[in-house]
């Protein structure tokens, strides 16, 4: 066998994070569908609930119930069994998810021993933070705090846990660098978020099914809304990117006097999808890989700074609860890397839903996940678009600038750069939509018993698995972010190009374009159907 074989279209299916995000998330999704035939193999997925040390009599919040297996609530065929799991669901989730991820790590030829060690610490740290973040003082709102015997709460909803995870991660990443290095084999925010984004596809497909349980009309409205986000996200992303890239390129070249290749890689790195774009563009313009690596090292730090600032800004300054999907879509176009963007979208989702509930005193409640989906939708489009843009840049560089005799750009580059996890995301979404419109009869009342079995499988994946992987992302993002990097001399003026381009150009343009395509989109109100 030749040592350097031809790269085939299926190369990397067993050796890249992108594909492993698909195998793991789609795998659990397919297993979840066995519920249709009465076999529930996913009800063990763990989920936290709010708790207090001294729950009021007849109130909520016993510590013994702080973690439960989602099958307790949603299973059709094994409710009794999953009800008995309680806190043990934490261990079940550790063993089963840990095994799945370790198989992936082994195929990707990582150091398995270090991965298992790192993952074990990251997982249980995540659970501890999730638990603390769900103390009612942090997670309850003034609408529901009385159920837990509290007169004051921080009103953070599930966002409190995410913030805590990020803070703990950043403390480890910045002050315990040896420990962070040990954890680095398992601190893979982009892998976790890609897996979570595939399960977000399950969420999108499940949304109409969920709302059909309230009313058939609401279900249809949800299906329409997700489709609108799909179309608006595509248009906004293409427009934004074609403005961002040349803008940053000109800023880098004309104001900061950077060389062409560095400016091109920065243009992509700062524009939308950060590291993956920096790598794609670096390759396309035939830059030495160090250029992409330097830009990437900056991107990950700035992305976390955006993650810290933007969700709060969009919720409390502008546009607030008036235009939650403008905020979500803009977030997707402004925050670099899938991980930081999806995390920022999820935080925004928590903040916005909590805020609208407080503002209306509980009269308006939005279903969770739609705002996150709006932030991820624009990002998913850009992840796909960058492959095409990188191909265009490769043509320009190879045939116009460098013109090496005999060099040609293979068209297969577009496929090799395609973000494969997106396939899993769309597959899960459209598969569930097909079930909803097909055997689910568009949410007709007579199909509800059937849809309930689909729900029993979908909820643990779109809620339990998704939130857990988001938590792992927040913690891992913190662990790999070292703010000191910004002070390193070798980055020189690139730090400033980034700062100027990001805050002076990218974020404002993202907001304007997000507004042009998403202004006035509303979320369905489910308050009257909730207990």
């Amino acid at each position: 066998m030749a040592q350097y074989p031809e790269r085939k279209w299926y190369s990397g299916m067993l050796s890249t994070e992108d594909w492993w995000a698909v195998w793991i998330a789609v795998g659990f999704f397919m297993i979840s569908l066995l519920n249709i035939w009465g076999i529930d193999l996913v009800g063990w997925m763990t989920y936290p609930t709010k708790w207090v040390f001294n729950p009021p009599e007849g109130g909520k919040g016993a510590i013994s119930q702080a973690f439960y297996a989602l099958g307790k609530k949603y299973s059709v065929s094994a409710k009794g069994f999953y009800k008995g799991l309680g806190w043990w669901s934490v261990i079940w989730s550790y063993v089963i998810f840990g095994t799945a991820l370790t198989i992936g790590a082994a195929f990707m030829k990582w150091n398995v021993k270090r991965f298992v060690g790192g993952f074990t610490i990251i997982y249980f740290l995540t659970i501890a933070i999730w638990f603390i973040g769900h103390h009612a003082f942090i997670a309850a709102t003034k609408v529901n705090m009385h159920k837990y015997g509290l007169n004051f709460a921080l009103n953070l909803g599930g966002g409190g846990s995410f913030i805590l995870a990020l803070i703990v991660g950043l403390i480890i990443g910045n002050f315990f660098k040896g420990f962070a290095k040990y954890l680095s084999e398992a601190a893979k925010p982009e892998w976790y978020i890609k897996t979570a984004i595939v399960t977000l596809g399950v969420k999108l497909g499940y949304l109409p099914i969920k709302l059909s349980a309230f009313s058939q009309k609401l279900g249809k409205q949800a299906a329409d809304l997700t489709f609108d986000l799909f179309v608006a996200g595509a248009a906004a992303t293409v427009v934004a990117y074609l403005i961002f890239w040349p803008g940053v390129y000109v800023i880098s070249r004309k104001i900061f006097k950077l060389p062409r290749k560095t400016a091109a890689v920065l243009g992509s790195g700062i524009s939308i999808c950060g590291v993956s774009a920096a790598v794609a563009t670096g390759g396309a313009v035939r830059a030495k890989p160090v250029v992409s690596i330097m830009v990437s090292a900056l991107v990950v730090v700035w992305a976390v700074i955006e993650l810290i600032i933007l969700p709060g800004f969009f919720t409390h300054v502008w546009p607030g609860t008036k235009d939650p999907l403008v905020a979500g879509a803009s977030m997707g176009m402004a925050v670099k890397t899938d991980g930081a963007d999806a995390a920022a979208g999820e935080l925004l989702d928590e903040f916005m839903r909590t805020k609208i509930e407080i503002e209306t005193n509980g009269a308006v409640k939005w279903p969770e996940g739609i705002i996150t989906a709006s932030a991820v939708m624009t990002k998913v489009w850009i992840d796909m678009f960058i492959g095409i843009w990188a191909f265009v840049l490769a043509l320009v560089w190879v045939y116009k600038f460098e013109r090496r005799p005999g060099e040609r750009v293979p068209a297969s580059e577009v496929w090799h750069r395609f973000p494969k996890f997106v396939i899993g995301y769309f597959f899960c979404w459209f598969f569930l939509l097909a079930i909803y419109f097909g055997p689910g009869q568009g949410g007709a009342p007579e199909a509800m018993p059937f849809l309930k079995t689909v729900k029993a499988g979908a909820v643990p994946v779109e809620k339990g698995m998704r939130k857990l992987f988001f938590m792992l992302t927040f913690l891992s993002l913190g662990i790999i972010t070292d703010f000191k990097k910004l002070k390193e001399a070798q980055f020189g003026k690139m730090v400033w190009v980034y700062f100027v381009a990001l805050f002076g150009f990218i974020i404002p343009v993202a907001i304007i374009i997000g507004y042009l395509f998403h202004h006035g989109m509303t979320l369905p109100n489910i308050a009257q159907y909730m207990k």
Partner: protein
Amino acid sequence: MAEVTTEEKKETQPGTGSLSVDALEAEDVLAGAEEWSSTETWLVLGSFIAAIIALFIGLLVVPTSVLH
């Protein structure tokens, strides 16, 4: 299959890669800006024009745009 050398083994060790930020020649990356060329003007303007066309079509076609 050719024998894998020690150096190659090192390169394929997880986590190593063959590059790290510490091993860069930063000057190389930041210095030596070329003259602005007409191809760049063409690329930048082309991209902006494509954006305007996409924006125009998008606003007309996308049902949730501000024009609707």
